[in-house]
């Protein structure tokens, strides 16, 4: 299922995984898992599920994990604003300083700012990320969040759950479950960060 333009998405991002492997673009595209409509519908459903599960929007705050969790969180905020008519507070989290592999990786990640301009004390925090894989990013994000205050609940929303967890972590809201092999790479491309809108499955080369 190769098509023109697939490489636009790939070239726009150099990926490396939390488990320390540099996967800078060494994959060959195998499959397109989601297109623009697919992503939009998944976000829409997640937004509804968040409101349904929490019985409204009381105490809800959204926090996106850099980089691609941030535009996803913004979309969820926008969607919820459309059907619930409330503007949820939104923050963004950089988890670099909480990674458990800093001393073992060759590459040093650039640290970006964490911006949570509100108190998360007693709130229900919806953490948003693009892909749930080993669970190590989510683990780091939980630590980072707890350093900012004591939320009442933390829930996790991801666009793709690809399996292969290394920690006891699960997502509360999943856009799509994609069973993968460890030889495969999931590449999420969003308009805001990559200029295209799709999710690709790549084979490591």
């Amino acid at each position, binding site marked *: 299922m190769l098509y023109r333009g697939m490489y636009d998405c790939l070239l726009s991002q*150099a990926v*490396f995984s939390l488990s320390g492997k*540099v996967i*800078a673009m060494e994959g060959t595209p195998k499959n397109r898992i989601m297109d623009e409509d697919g992503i939009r519908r998944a976000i829409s459903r997640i937004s509804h599920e968040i409101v349904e599960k929490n019985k409204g929007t009381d105490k809800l705050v959204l926090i996106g994990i850099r980089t691609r969790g941030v535009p996803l969180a913004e979309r969820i905020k926008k969607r919820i604003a459309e059907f619930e008519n409330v503007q949820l507070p939104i923050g963004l989290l*950089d988890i670099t*300083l*909480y990674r458990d592999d*800093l*001393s*073992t*990786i*060759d*590459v*040093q*990640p*650039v*640290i*970006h*700012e*964490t*911006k949570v301009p509100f108190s998360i004390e007693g709130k229900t925090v919806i953490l948003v990320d693009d892909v749930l894989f080993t669970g190590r990013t989510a683990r780091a994000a939980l*630590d980072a969040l707890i*350093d*900012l*205050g004591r939320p009442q609940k933390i829930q996790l929303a991801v666009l793709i759950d690809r399996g292969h967890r290394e920690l006891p972590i699960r997502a509360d809201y999943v856009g799509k479950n994609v069973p993968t092999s460890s030889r495969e790479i999931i590449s999420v491309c969003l308009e805001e960060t990559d200029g295209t809108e799709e999710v690709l499955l790549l084979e490591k080369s």
Partner: protein
Amino acid sequence: MKWKRKDLLDLENLTAEEIKHILHTAIPMKEILGRPIKKLPTLRGKSVVLLFYESSTRTRTSFENAAKILGADTTNFSVAQSSVNKGESLLDTAKTLQAMNVDLVIVRHSSSGSAEFLADILNAGVINGGDGQHAHPTQALLDYFTIQDHLGGFEGKKVVIVGDILHSRVARSNVVGLKKLGAEVTLVGPPTLLPPEMKYLGVKISHHLDQELPGADAVMALRLQLERQQSGLFPSIREYSKLYGLNKERIKLTGKDTIVMHPGPMNRGVEIASDLADSVQSVIEEQVTNGVAVRMALIYLLIGGGTVNVVD
């Protein structure tokens, strides 16, 4: 870009890109300083030794704070209680530290070049916390961070540094980096403290403060080392203050919302008047906060793992 440095000794061999990378990394660090819980797990298990042969409160405390917030353990090796008093050489002290497998040594010493000497011997990283009259790179970096924060950048900005330039490692380090970042620097001081041969720094030098102030975006007063008066480098403190001291009236000559900086500790009423030091134009306290942020950034960059490449 690549961040491959083990040490930070001076700003001479850093590129503008590297300086900007340090400043960029300090932005998220500053956010952490504003949190109720200022503690990260990032450098857990790393050991940082503060080796201070010269007295220092602000620099040492700032480094110690920075390392602790990042989760590292710090050990103070202050000369008063150490074996240096028993005559141990810097080389032997270095070997001792090496044997203890420390990860980072922050050194202040009265001899220029001592930080580099240590860096050559040690496997651990070395940060120069001020060596003789040579360099004080972290003070310069925190000054850049403050300037960037207030002025938005460096290109074409006019920075005036006034005071005892001759003996000031702060001024020397500042000039080196500010030039690389594209700022326009003017050094001002009496001829005895700013002799003509200081032109080697490649910036404008002047002995008349009032002539240089118009158009200045940032003015930095240096601490007047009062012991210099005894050695006859200027006639009296009162005269110095009259000619080179900053005050509220004088700063109006810039015709701008100029920021006023001072590396501390201040001699109030000598190089800077109290009314100015406590005014809204003064960023002196911010400089202290920014110092911790910048030092956190540096410590992270030097021993935070991953020295082959930097990936965004």
